[in-house]
Each structure stands twice: as C-alpha cells, then as structure tokens.
C-alpha cells in the first residue's frame, strides 16, 4: 500500500503543478517560435549575402556565420547576457536575451542551409533571369527563392528541432521555461521519473509536431513547383498519394554541416 500511496502523492503533485508546467511549456513554445522567426530572418539575410558574388557582401557574412557556428550556444548566451550591456545594450527581459542568443546561433547554421540551396538552384534558372533582365529583388522573390525554399526546408526542419532542444538551456538566464518548471517539480516530489517522463514526452511531442508541420510546408512548396501532390490531397483522410518521406526527425546532416559544401 505504501507504493500506491506514493503513486497517488506523485499524481497529486503533478496535478497541482499542472498549470505551472503548462505555463512553462507555453514559454518554451514562444521561445522556440520567436527564436525561429529571428533565426530565419538572419539565415535568409546572411545566406543571400554569403551566396553573393561580391566580396564586400560575402566576406562579412562568412565571418559572422563562422563566428556564430564556431562558438557554442552557451558562450553566446553568456555573451549576450553579461557582455552586451557593457557596450550600452541592456536587454529589457531575459526572454529577449534568450531569443537573441537562439536566433543568432541557429540563424548562422540556417544561413549555410540557405546558401547551399541557393547554389543548388540550377544555373539555367539564374541565366534565364539575366536574359529576362529581371531586377534583383524580382528574380530572387519570383524565381530563385521559391525553388531554393523547397530545397532548404528539410535542413530548416532539423534546425528547428535543434533550436527547440537548445531552448532548454535558456532557463539559466532566469526564464521559467518548461525545463525550469520540470526542475521545480523534481524539487517538491523527489520523483525524478515523473520529471523524466512528463518532460521528455512534452519536448518529444512538440518536436514531432514541428517536423510534421515542416513536412507539410515541404509538400506545399514542392507542389507550387509542380512536383508532388497538393497539400489538400495529403491532408485529406484518404490520401491518393502518401507522403514520401523519411521518418520524422531523420537527420541527414549536422545543422548546416553536410549541406555546407564549401566553407571557404
């Protein structure tokens, strides 16, 4: 009966802690999504710069990318937290600190994915835009990026999961995220396994959801290029054509690692 009582106690604690855990989870979701948006913007800007023929654009982009890829996320987090204020940039909230560190780090990895997929768009397409004398924004927006976008989604999906996992460290600058609240749960119950199961499963399901969404984005991007079924066909209860893809979370490359092609 002792064992049963203990289980009940665990369950009650979990029940009392439910709202806090949920809040923490929502904060992790926010960190991931806002961080991912910032990372995406940085990735596209740096990726376009790194893919440009002009040395004045390519050089700085390469330095920034290699710097943020080469140093560790935790170093960057501490740097944003402790050192940036000395340069006159005080960040109002820990949330901003976390989002900036995540955005810069994973943005640099994403920039490699963006650059690699831009170079994978066939040269004929680039030449055609020149032949039609399209302006730079026009050709990137209408011709090059839509094709590169379909190519870069798998890498970006991997990076998104990496970003979610990386967000678990951000609690050290004072954010009550999912990981932090789980740690609090451990403190009051000594139930490490509850912590283990609730926490890991929570992160896992969210990561799974993110990869599924990215898979659907890929289907849509490919369909717009005239490849594969429409999103509607895939989502319908009786799909005519099943999604052909590796199992979720399959990671053919290190963030920006294998896709990077040439480093210099």
């Amino acid at each position: 009966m002792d064992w049963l009582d203990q289980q009940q106690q665990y369950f009650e604690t979990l029940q009392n802690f439910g709202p806090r855990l949920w809040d923490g989870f929502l904060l992790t979701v926010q960190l991931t999504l806002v961080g991912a948006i910032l990372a995406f913007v940085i990735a596209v800007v740096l990726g376009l710069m790194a893919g440009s023929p002009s040395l004045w654009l390519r050089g700085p982009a390469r330095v920034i990318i290699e710097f943020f890829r080469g140093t560790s996320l935790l170093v960057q987090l501490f740097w944003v937290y402790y050192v940036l204020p000395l340069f006159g940039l005080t960040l109002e909230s820990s949330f901003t600190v976390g989002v900036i560190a995540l955005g810069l780090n994973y943005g640099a990895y994403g920039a490699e994915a963006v650059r690699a997929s831009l170079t994978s768009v066939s040269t004929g397409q680039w030449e055609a835009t020149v032949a039609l004398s399209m302006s730079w924004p026009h050709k990137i927006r209408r011709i090059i990026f839509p094709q590169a976008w379909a190519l870069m989604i798998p890498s970006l999906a991997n990076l998104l999961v990496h970003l979610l996992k990386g967000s678990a460290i951000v609690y050290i600058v004072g954010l009550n995220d999912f990981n932090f609240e789980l740690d609090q749960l451990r403190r009051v119950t000594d139930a490490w396994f509850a912590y283990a199961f609730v926490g890991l499963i929570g992160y896992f399901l969210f990561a799974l959801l993110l990869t599924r969404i990215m898979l659907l984005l890929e289907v849509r991007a490919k369909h717009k290029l005239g490849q594969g079924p429409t999103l509607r066909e895939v989502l319908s209860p009786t799909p005519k054509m099943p999604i052909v893809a590796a199992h979720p979370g399959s990671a053919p490359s290190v963030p920006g690692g294998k896709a990077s092609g040439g480093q210099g």
Partner: protein
Amino acid sequence: MMTLTPLATAQPSGESTGNIWDWDFALEIFPEILTAFIQVTLLVTVVGTAIAAVIGLVIAILIRVLPSPLAFIVRWAANFIRMTPIVVQLLVLYYGFTWMDPLLIGFIVFGVHYATYMSEVYRAGIDSVPKGQWEATKALSMSAGRTWRRVVIPQALRSTIPSLGNYAISMFKDTPFLFVISVAEMVSVAQDLGAQTFRYTEAITIAGLIFLAASYPTALLINRLEKRLAYAN
C-alpha cells in the same frame, strides 16, 4: 519584443568603467580556462564520439536486421532520444542516478544522444552499398556476420567519415551543456572566473575563441576530406 534600451544602471561593469577589456586579467585567467578545456571539454568530446560511433553503428544494424516490430521500437526509441534536449537528458540522469559521477553521465548522454544521429549516417551508408554486393555474398554463401564485417560495413563506412566528423564537432560545441550538472567544463569555469571578479567579458570571450580556434580548422579539414572522398568515388 525586441526592446533594446541604452545602458542605464546596475550592470556588472565593476570599478573599471570604460575599460571593457583588460589584457592582464585575460592573460591571468587564460591558463585556467585552457586547462578546463583540455581536461573536460576535449575528454568528453573524444570519449563521447567513440561511444557514439560504436552505438550508432549498432543501432543502424539493429534497425536493419531485427524483425519489423522490434526494429520499429528501436527506431522510435532513437527518434525519442534525438528529439529531446540534451540538457533535460543530462538532468534526468543526474538526479535519477545520484551515485553516478557527473562526468560519466556526460559520457553516456553525449555518447547515446549523438549515436542516434550517427545511426542515420550509417543507415545512409549501408543503403548506399549496391544491391549486387549483397547478392554476391549470398551467391558465395557467406554467413550474415561475415557479410556485414567483410563486405557491407567496410564499404558503408567510407562515405560516412565526414558526416561523423561533423557530428563530433557538433558534440564538441554542445559540451558546455554539462554546466547544468555542475561539471567544471570550460564555459562554467569561465563563468565562475567572471562571477568572482565581475569581469565576464575576458573569461567568456576567451572561452568562445578557444571553441572557434578548435572547431573551425577541424571543420575545414573535414570539408577537404569530404571533397577528396567525393572525387575518389
């Protein structure tokens, strides 16, 4: 959301305002940070990579040879480990097995976590072995063990080396997460040094530069290796 306001008050700038970088202090703390780098960061990377390389291959082979329900379980267990944060995994083992040395927990978590990544690389390598090779081993009536050891794995491994190297670098840059289970690894040593003196700039920057100095040349080297292997094929 992104409100950047000018420096106002209460920042840990210490007594030396206007003096952001102090060379004497930087030189003073450099040996300590470098020692932590060699003793912990490099050690965990090397041991973790070795564990990951072996377990990753085992996972890849298991998924290939086990009957499908079991292979399904192994595959999803690997997915589960791959898609959950290293930080949480470290904390779970740290509090779950308090008798274990934190460094040992580091070896296990980094080894197993990256094994799930490396198993994907091995899987791709195994898939790239031509079907004719498998058929030839059948024709020569080789045993399953011999087929794997002598024919499949040697051919599969060749193309995987650069990707494995990239994961080793990736693991290297994740080692600061050991901070959360209070292993005195480089970044936590740097943070400690900063906290003692309220001079974080030097310590954190040195730690970052050591990472850069170690990982960037290695990445270049792996890149060249990748290109050479691509040419050789």
